[in-house]
């Protein structure tokens, strides 16, 4: 009995999904190769079905989000104060925004809704932009400074110079930095890179010639000795 239940569950949970998925994959592959009316029709139908499923999933996720926040507000037990403040903010802002958008003629397409959306999104993105790059530069500096070797210090200095060079506002305040970094990249870096390549090429030729005249041990001999 248990085996039957388990196997039927397995069929339902794994093989069923795999079967449906395989049909989708098959249709998509054929559609990429052959221009056939029936396949084109099925392809379009699948795409539309996918959109419908996506909308349902989005609604489910949104419901879970609001339900979780509401549940915290009602029961409160075992929930940290900061989480409660966050959940309350989410609920209040959502209600206010929904009320505002519903009150506008044209609702989410209205000019008012667009302005609110742009202001909220813009401020949020700008705040994140500042926080993101602030954190990134802080950690780059901190991680590099944890190393005490010459090559790490050189890496840090070059990273710092390249960052300044790639930031237009800083280039304005540090005149000549862009030319200096370009020179480092075009001359020092490229020179070093070509030097390494030439050395490797010459070394490979010498090794090859030594191998041809039997002066170079094979891999097995090298490992044994």
């Amino acid at each position, binding site marked *: 009995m248990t085996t039957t239940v388990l196997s039927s569950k397995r069929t339902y949970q794994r093989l069923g999904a795999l079967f449906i998925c395989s049909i989708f994959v098959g249709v998509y*592959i054929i559609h*990429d*190769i*052959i*221009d*056939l009316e029936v396949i084109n029709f099925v392809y379009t139908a699948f795409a539309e079905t996918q959109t419908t499923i*996506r909308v349902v*999933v*989005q609604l*489910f*996720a*949104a419901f*879970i*989000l609001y339900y*979780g926040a509401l549940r*915290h507000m009602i029961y409160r037990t075992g*929930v*940290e104060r*900061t*989480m409660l403040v*966050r959940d309350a903010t989410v609920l209040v802002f959502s209600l206010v925004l929904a009320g505002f958008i519903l009150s506008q003629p044209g609702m989410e397409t209205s000019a008012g809704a667009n302005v609110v959306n742009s202001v909220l*999104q813009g401020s*949020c*993105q700008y*705040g*994140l932009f500042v*926080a*993101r790059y602030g*954190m*990134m530069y*802080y*950690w*780059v500096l901190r*991680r590099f400074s944890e190393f005490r070797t010459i090559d790490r210090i050189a890496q840090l200095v070059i990273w710092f110079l390249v960052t300044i060079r790639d930031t237009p506002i800083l280039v304005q305040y540090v005149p000549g930095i862009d030319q200096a970094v370009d020179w480092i990249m075009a001359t020092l870096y490229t020179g070093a890179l070509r030097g390494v390549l030439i050395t490797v090429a010459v070394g490979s030729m010498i090794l090859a010639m030594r191998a041809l005249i039997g002066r170079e041990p094979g891999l097995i001999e090298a490992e044994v000795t």
Partner: protein
Amino acid sequence: MSFRAGAGWVAIFFVVALVDVLYHTWSALSGKLAMELRMLAPVESISDGIDRCKEMGKPLYLTIGCYAELSGLYAPMTISGINIQRYTSRLAVRRDVDPWFMVPMIPEALALIDGVYREVCVAEGKPEAYHRDHVQWFGQLEAGYSTGAAGMAARLRAGCAVCAGAMSGTGDIAPTATNRTVGALMIGGNARYTHQGVYSIWYDYTLWTSDVYAAGAYCSGDVLLRSSVMAMDLVTFACIAIGVIALALGTDWLVFP
């Protein structure tokens, strides 16, 4: 009925990849090829990270990345991330460490992550270890995920953060930086070439590019997934070879639909 322009190349590539995957699948099922993958240091460190949480009495922070979509470029990263997350959360539940799941901005991932969490708790014989509140979703905007997950990271002060999958170079930076700032042991990585530099700064143990797929296959314990990693390597080498030939001969002859 007619063939689309460039369909021949798609068909050839598809058949070659199909033969490659079928051969490795058959080899895995018949036991003809050893499907052992080299143990990666970040995978080994997951267990240590959970022990660290246990010793410090701190929770575990988990994410599969802000861009964890179930289609397109990110889908394989998402699946690998889910496998790593399943392995990690299973160890955490076994050792009585609280896992917290940050759901990416993709709503489909919410049901997937929640299902894995439930399965893990039941599989470990601890259904009471499941807490609905430990699966956090912050809406469909990248900014929502970024601020929400960063806030959670600051609040949780996790002992370890396992962040592997479809990590982004924008939305995931603030949460990852916050985790580092609060002293979490950082394990993770992403398969996109563009962000390798970013995440080498953040992580103590980094999964580089396709390491994410190998780690996912290893964590799943499924020989079929391991065989797919081997098959994938061959396709990767084939793509590099085609790219080199196309560079040498020009790309006029290489037309895709």
